[in-house]
Each structure stands twice: as structure tokens, then as C-alpha cells.
């Protein structure tokens, strides 16, 4: 799988607001996933969200979307994004911790087998309630000869994405622990 990561902080870059108005806590209420219309329209996204918010997952999710990017004639693609936040601490306290997580995740995704899809992890500033720090927006996209083929490829990519998730978060640095 083609995977990479980058940082978008400051200069008008988007900030992830985890507890936004439409936020549904799928860790506490997985059965409410049906209220997320983007997921309801694409069952593999439902499975992704529940997998990411599962009991043994190191992350939780705040927001997602699904769309069809414009493609050249003869091909089709399907993409989604999901905001990822660490279970411990609600947000990454320091961006280096998020970076270490991304590096590990990208390495695991690259080993997830051949697939017509790509993953891009973007580290952003984040706010979860009164806590400020950093979080990650994961963009996952897949292509195919038609929409059905693209949907099949994205289905596989989302399953691989959950499987490749690092089992735990990198430890915070000594400096951040003192804060």
C-alpha cells in the first residue's frame, strides 16, 4: 500500500475540533454508528469506524467523510478521511509523539500488501474539550476501472488500515511529562 505522512500546522491550516456539534462517541455507543450517514452509505466505512473505536484500539475518531474525487475518463476513485486521536490523553500532547506514531503506522501500511490505494496521514493541531494538542487526519483513497472496482479496492484498503494500526502509542518525552 502506498502510504506517507506530513505535518500541516499554523498558517491557516485546519484545526481538528474533536468534540464538534455532530460528534458521536463510538467507543461508548458503537450502536449509534448508524446515525453517521457517511458510514451508513458505505458499510466498509462503518466497519472502519467501529474497528478504530474498538476496545483494544489505541485511537478514537472524531469525524469522517466519503467522496468521489474527479478522475480521468476510464477510471474511477473513491476516498474517505477520518480524524484519529489517541485514547491516552485525548490528543497527542506534542507533535513529535504524533510523528513517531505516523512513522510506525506508515511502515506498517507499506507492508499491508499490494492494493490500488493510498494512505496519507496529516498531523494537525487539535482540540478535544479543554485539551489542546495534535491529532491526525488519515486520507484513504482507492481507484478502479469503475465505481464498483474502486469501492472494492477501498473496502480492502480500509480493512488493511485497521489491521495495520500500531497496537499502542509511542511514549511521551520526558519534557512533555513535566508540563
Amino acid at each position, binding site marked *: 500500500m502506498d502510504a506517507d505522512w506530513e505535518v500541516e500546522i499554523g498558517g491557516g491550516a485546519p484545526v481538528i475540533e474533536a468534540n464538534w456539534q455532530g460528534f458521536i462517541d463510538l467507543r461508548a455507543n458503537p450502536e449509534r454508528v448508524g446515525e453517521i450517514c457517511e458510514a451508513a452509505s458505505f458499510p*466498509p466505512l462503518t466497519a472502519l469506524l467501529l474497528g478504530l473505536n474498538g476496545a483494544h484500539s489505541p485511537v478514537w475518531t472524531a469525524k469522517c467523510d466519503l467522496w468521489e474525487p474527479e478522475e480521468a475518463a476510464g477510471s474511477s476513485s473513491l476516498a474517505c478521511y477520518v480524524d484519529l486521536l489517541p485514547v491516552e490523553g485525548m490528543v497527542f500532547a506534542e507533535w513529535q509523539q504524533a510523528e513517531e506514531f505516523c512513522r510506525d503506522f506508515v511502515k506498517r501500511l507499506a507492508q499491508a500488501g499490494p492494493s490500488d490505494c493510498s494512505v496519507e496521514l496529516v498531523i494537525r493541531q487539535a482540540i478535544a474539550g479543554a485539551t489542546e494538542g495534535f491529532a491526525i487526519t488519515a486520507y484513504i483513497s482507492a481507484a478502479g476501472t469503475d465505481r464498483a472496482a474502486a469501492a472494492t479496492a477501498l473496502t480492502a484498503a480500509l480493512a488493511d488500515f485497521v489491521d495495520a494500526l500500531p497496537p499502542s502509542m509511542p511514549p511521551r518525552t520526558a519534557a512533555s511529562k513535566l508540563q
Partner: protein
Amino acid sequence: MAERLSVAQDVEGSIPSSRPNLHGPQQLYSRACRVSVTSQISENTILDTPAGAKPAWLNSFVPQRGLGSGHLQTIVGNFLPRPPFRHSAVAETVLVDPADGSSVLCHSHWQPEPQRAGRLTVVQVHGLEGSSDSRYIQGIAARLWAAGCNVVCMNMRNCNDTDALTPTLYHSGLSGDVGAVVDHFTARFGLRRVALVGYSMGGNLVLKLAGEWGQRAPLVAVATVCPAVDLAPGSDALHETANRLYEWRFLRGLMRRFRRKAELFPNRYQTEGVGPIRSLRDFDDKIVARYCGFRDADDYYYRAAAARVVDQIAVPTLILCAKDDPFIRLQPNTRARLIANPNIDLVETQHGGHCAYLSRDPGNETHWAEATVVRYLMAVTGERHGC
């Protein structure tokens, strides 16, 4: 509407007045009743049955709020947190095929002596790529144990990391394995009454065995949830675009297992030359048929399907299935044969997804299928110990 009417026509006039008497004078449930439940179930109305014929073991199923679609039920059913069944099980391997030395792993919960032999023993069989650890297996085990039953949670060949216990693959035709497990524990403990429970692929296996065994003791009852009794339509339905999520997950697990088998038994299995496997039918055609003695996928689907033998089932049998199950397809002629058999109670709900049945009712009824299966077994066998 047309389908509902046709079911009603099939059912009318076919309600038998009695069941075969398998349990002696203490039998609590003696009337068979074919039930086709429609969306009206949410109003506590069961259509297609005479007024007052709703059996006591059948409560209304109303899907959990927000989970009205079959996909959502199916997916959420796999993730909804639930307390684990903490009673420790006895692990034991059971030889199921002396010819090739195949064994299966069973996790059992035995009531104490001297009651053990007289208690109802329930052998449970999981679905494709499941195991004795599957949530629904554990859920029913907890209920049956509380009701005073012995419970055997059987793993199909290779499942639950038991690839080394058999040189073969596993498939939907291995009903003999379930029979061998029943025979093993019956001989060992002198069991007098055994019931079978199966989900999905496991449902096909136990129905197939029930058809093959007829009234053979100690089998007294069967209960299934979303059984894959028509294998070919179910396999093809998995390849529909909306179902690729499930097919992908099944295929990934099956291919991992096949590669593991090839590592363990390199003289028996070759991974090279198999070609791309893009569907479950592909897998069944190129791997199951090749290594398990079938001509091709269609031959496998025909010979392994319980649909061929359901008219020979001679003990009380429950079949629960949902009309919005994403990939289980009950063919009209199979449905007709199920309805024609007075021993079979067919309950078709409008909602429930595949083996999920997450109900709006709280507590023990949240997992409606599990509650219904246990109530059914208690009713038709007269078992009441722990209730």
C-alpha cells in the same frame, strides 16, 4: 407483498396437530408452528399464523434504534461490547476421521455428576472463519449453562489455530465431524439428549446432520441462526458490490489459512499456480473443490448444502433468518421444503442482518437470536433446570 402472500398460502392448512413424541410425557412443547414474521412484528403481530398460534418461546424482534439496515446490524453485531462468559471450559480434541487422523478442538462446559448424563447437552457450531470463541457462541453458552445444560463449543477443522490437528481443509459438507463429536461425548458420558446449535455455515452443518440422522438418538432438537442452507446463491451474493466487505474478510482469512496449511503440509498443498482468487466462489472452485474431493464449486455447493436433506429432519428444529441478511439467500423451493416439514419452525424476520439480531429490548433480550434459540431449546426439550 406477493412473497408474503405465497408464504401465507403455504402455511395455511399445514400446521400439524402434533410433533413426534421424543421426550415422553413431560414434553412441554408439542405443537409445531411454522412462523413467518414480517415487518409487522414490531407491532407484536405475527402474520401467516392462525390467531393464538404464536409460540411462547417467540418474542417480538424490534431492531435496535438506528440499526434498521441489515448491513448495520451485521457490522455492529461484531463490535458491540458485551461481557465475556467467564466460566472456564474443558479443552479436548476429538478424533473425527480415523482415516486421515483429523481431530477437532472442543471447549466444553459440563454440569457436575451425577446429573450430567440426564441434562440436555448442546453442541454448538460456529460460522465461516469463526471459532468456539465467537461472541455468539459464547453468548449462547452462557445462557445454556445458566439453564443447567452441558455445552460443547466445537471448532471446525483448522479453526481456533488448530491447523496442525488435521491435514485437510474445512468446508460446509463436514456434517460427519459434528456427528463424530456427538458420538464421542455420548459414549464418554452416557448422554441421553443432545441438541445442536449452528450459526451460518455451522447452521448448514447441523441441519445437514439432522437430515442425515433423522430420529437417531440422542439427537432431540436443533436450532440455527441464519443457516447457509443454499450455498451457491449465498456464495454468489457475497460477490455483490454491497457485500465485498464480508467477502473480502472471509477471503483474507481463508487464504491466510490455506497458506498456513501449505506450510504445514507442503506435500499436500501447492500455493503456486492457484491463480488469483477474487471471490468466495473462486476459492471454492480452485481450492476447496480441488483438495476436498468435489468436481468444482457447483458440485461442492450441491453436495454440501443442507437444502438437499431438510425434508428428512425428524426432530424439532428452529431456523431463524432475516430478510435483510446481506448474503444468505433462502431459495423459494428450499423455503417450501422447510415449511412442508412439520418438525421445522421457520422464523423469518424483516430485520436482523446476518447473525446479529440486535434488539431494542434491554438486558438478556438485546441479543434476540441467542435468547430465542435458548428459549426454543428449553421449550421443545422440556429442560428447565437453571431457569
